[in-house]
């Protein structure tokens, strides 16, 4: 009868609550408005059951407005570890709703709780109409990470920009005159122009010739291809209206910050009232790549230890800057590793001049995190030498020569900011400067005995990689290892038992358990990162995967041990998140902020989004451990 729209204030207040949380903060206004308008609000007193397997197929999504919800296994044993506590802004049970099946968990109110209820129809509509919502529901961890990355980028943008002398005005970075079309042009015309001119965006103008909108490559996918839009429709129907602009005198850093904060990839640049051009995220990143190549050159050309040490310090600066730009931790560690490799290589070349190494065959190996390409910013040395077995009687003389050389290299690297290894796992140690047959014996020995020392060594030495010299030697060693380890189930089982000794700090209800005598912190390396690294090593060795990095090991082993593609991708995302947290924490340590321990972090200092991801990451670590436990009946 009366068909009034719902009071705007009611909608606005609800949207305000939702916008504090992912994925709602990333949703378009109209999609969020439709979602909010369809919500019901329910109350559950503490301990009241909200959902259980007996509730039947799920037909609504629950979003926690305030309070907390406990999810528990009802059947006792389970491996999927979704149990935990959900807090404000979190949604459940997404999987069951999408699959229209009963939930496997029992959900009860952990405290007095108000829940928004979104019925199936409105849920499906949101899935269809909102990409961020869809991504959140179908790829929960990945979507959260994306949002977190954006946050990281924002937090660091200003500082990094300064370091990159991005204080220069935008007009210096514009690469071409703006390309415009009237907004009445068809999508086809716009796409053809983009192709012809090889550009990523076109600015659309209104009748007065003023910018009215922008259309970019990304929009083609979202708003045209996937939306099934006809190419003959006017582009104004799919363009982004009123694109954000900055004056040409604004600093590059300002553009970087604005993009990071609002998640834009393009900004208009105005000279007075006139459109002067478009600046893209890529343009800003381009500046970055130049300095990276410059750095590589600088390393390769440094003629003295001092010059090399200077270049090495700049590598750290670059790591920070990349962190600032929200580059994934896998890429950062790869770049940093690549540059560190270049530093090591140059250190070997410099030392080689003093030791007449030209005719000596050997290979310098990186071990541990260096071997895995997972060095964070604060890494000490872990290296060794492998050399071909010389004619009888010459082995010790050759070893002595290599040790003298290695000693100089180790000291050079120390001067370059890679501290000497406290455990003396370095090439200058006679124990770790070995001929190929000696290495084979050593490895064989460890696998045969599997005593605590052997197991500890395996975790460091089995993550080996050729850094400089004759890589064929390292290939032989790896072949031997992979061939032998399969026949040593007892050794693998011992390694598995070791890998399970440190459990991720996850409480009974999915809360993060801090160590109070450590100032309420958790150890990211020992408690979070290492379970991933150790489990990946075991899974790779047992399934004959030669890769060394944790990510590559998981990717390689996944299909062979019938882990689903999604599970592998999620585990990798989780591992990379903890690596990113470690980078961030080490970075703030170097700058004298907050933490005093490079790998310790107080979860309360994380924003709510990162805390949620950390919890999810801990669950993933536990899941991986459970997988290993199951394999070895532990």
């Amino acid at each position, binding site marked *: *009868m*009366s068909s*009034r729209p*719902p*009071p705007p*204030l*009611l*909608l*606005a*207040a*609800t949207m*305000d609550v939702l916008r504090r949380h992912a994925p709602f903060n990333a949703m378009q206004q109209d999609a969020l408005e439709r979602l*909010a*308008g*369809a*919500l*019901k*609000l*329910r*109350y559950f*007193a503490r301990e*009241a059951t909200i959902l259980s397997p007996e509730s039947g197929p799920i037909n609504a999504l629950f979003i926690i407005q*305030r309070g907390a919800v406990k999810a528990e296994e009802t059947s006792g044993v389970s491996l999927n570890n979704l149990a935990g506590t959900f807090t404000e802004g979190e949604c459940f049970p997404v999987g069951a709703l999408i699959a229209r099946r009963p939930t496997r968990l029992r959900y009860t109110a952990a405290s*007095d709780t*108000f829940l928004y*209820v979104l019925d199936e129809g409105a849920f499906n509509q949101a899935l269809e109409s909102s990409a961020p919502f869809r991504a959140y529901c179908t790829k929960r961890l990945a979507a959260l990470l994306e949002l977190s990355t954006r946050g990281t980028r924002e937090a660091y943008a200003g500082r990094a920009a300064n370091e990159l002398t991005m204080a220069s005005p935008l007009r210096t970075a514009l690469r071409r005159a703006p390309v415009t079309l009237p907004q009445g042009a068809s999508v086809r015309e716009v796409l053809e122009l983009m192709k012809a001119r090889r550009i990523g965006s076109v600015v659309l103008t209104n009748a007065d010739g003023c910018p009215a909108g922008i259309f970019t490559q990304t929009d083609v996918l979202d708003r045209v291809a996937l939306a099934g839009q006809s190419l003959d429709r006017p582009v104004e129907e799919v363009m982004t209206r009123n694109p954000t602009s900055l004056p040409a005198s604004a600093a590059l850093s300002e553009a970087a910050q604005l993009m990071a904060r609002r998640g834009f990839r393009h900004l208009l640049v105005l000279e007075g009232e006139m459109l002067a051009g478009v600046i893209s995220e890529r343009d800003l990143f381009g500046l970055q790549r130049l300095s990276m190549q410059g750095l590589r050159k600088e390393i390769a050309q440094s003629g003295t230890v001092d010059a090399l040490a200077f270049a090495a310090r700049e590598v750290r600066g670059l790591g920070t800057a990349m962190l600032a730009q929200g580059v994934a931790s896998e890429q950062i560690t790869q770049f940093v590793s690549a540059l560190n490799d270049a530093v090591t290589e140059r250190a070997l070349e410099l030392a080689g001049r003093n030791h007449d190494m030209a005719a000596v065959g050997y290979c310098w190996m990186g071990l541990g995190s260096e071997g895995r390409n997972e060095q964070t910013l604060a890494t000490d040395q872990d290296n060794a030498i492998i050399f071909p077995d010389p004619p009888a009687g010459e082995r010790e003389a050759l070893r002595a020569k290599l040790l003298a050389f290695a000693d100089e290299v180790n000291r050079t690297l120390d001067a370059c900011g890679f501290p000497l290894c406290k455990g003396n796992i370095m090439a200058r140690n006679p124990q770790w400067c070995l001929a190929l047959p000696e290495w084979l014996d050593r490895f064989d020995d460890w696998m045969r005995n599997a005593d605590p020392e052997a197991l500890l060594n395996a975790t460091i030495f089995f993550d080996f990689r050729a850094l400089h010299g004759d890589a064929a030697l390292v290939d032989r060693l790896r072949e031997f290892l992979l061939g032998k380890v399969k026949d040593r189930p007892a050794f693998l089982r011992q390694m598995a038992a070791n890998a399970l000794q440190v459990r991720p700090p996850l409480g009974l209800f999915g809360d993060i358990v801090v160590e109070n005598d450590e100032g309420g912190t958790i150890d990211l390396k020992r408690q979070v990162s290492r379970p991933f690294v150790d489990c990946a090593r075991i899974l790779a060795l047992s399934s004959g995967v030669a890769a060394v990095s944790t990510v590559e090991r998981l990717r390689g082993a996944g299909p062979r041990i019938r882990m689903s593609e999604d599970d592998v991708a999620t585990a990798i995302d989780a591992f990379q998140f903890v690596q990113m947290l470690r980078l961030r924490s080490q970075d703030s340590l170097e700058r004298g902020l907050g933490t005093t321990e490079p790998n310790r972090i107080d979860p309360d200092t994380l924003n709510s989004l990162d805390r949620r991801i950390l919890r999810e990451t801990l669950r993933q670590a536990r899941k991986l451990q459970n997988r290993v436990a199951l394999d070895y009946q532990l």
Partner: protein
Amino acid sequence: MAPAFWPFRGVRPSLDPAVSERLRHWKSLREYDPSRPAKAGRWVVVDVESSGLDAGRDALIAVGALAVVDGAIDLADSFEAVLRQDAPSSVENIEVHGIGGTEQTEGEAPDAALADFLAFVGKDPLVAFHAPFDSIMLKRAIDHHLGVAFKRPWLDLADIAPLAWPKYASRLEGLDAWLEQFAIPVAFRHRAIADCLATAQLMLRVLEEAPVIGAPTAGRLLGLSGASRWLT
């Protein structure tokens, strides 16, 4: 011009035919069932804003209403209207509810808005905190603009909350205190619809307590509310 004598009590000649039709329809609606479980069915949470605190004299400026259906607040099942005033209320008063002078003088025609309100409420029981004030304001306005006697059952949460949570009864007085006790946020205090949303959340809690305090049915719950006895 109104004739000197009008045979149909309560329906005034000046009413728009569409409004009259709506009133007839409202009157024909079935009464709610007092024997239904308290948590089942529909309750309408109401809050009004007025030009002052004298329910007998001050003008009704805005009405907000929000339904609680089967124990859930349905955000789409909601109502808000600002009634057109001949002159804006005082500055002090505007500062309380935030409905500015222009918004008041450009509000909706009161007869149509109140007819819409009746259609929204239907014959379901009403809920408010300090219900007598809202009840009297609405009764006067509806009688004045529509010529209808608005006698409805009201559940006054100011009566029920102390019964539901006796341990807080001596300490908590007024809506703000109860909202604070249960950490219920209010987006804009004294905007009718925002107050409704907060009051409705208190109502969700009351409905959970209803069976415990001996009021398993809607009728019994209303019976516990002192206000309901003399308002109906």
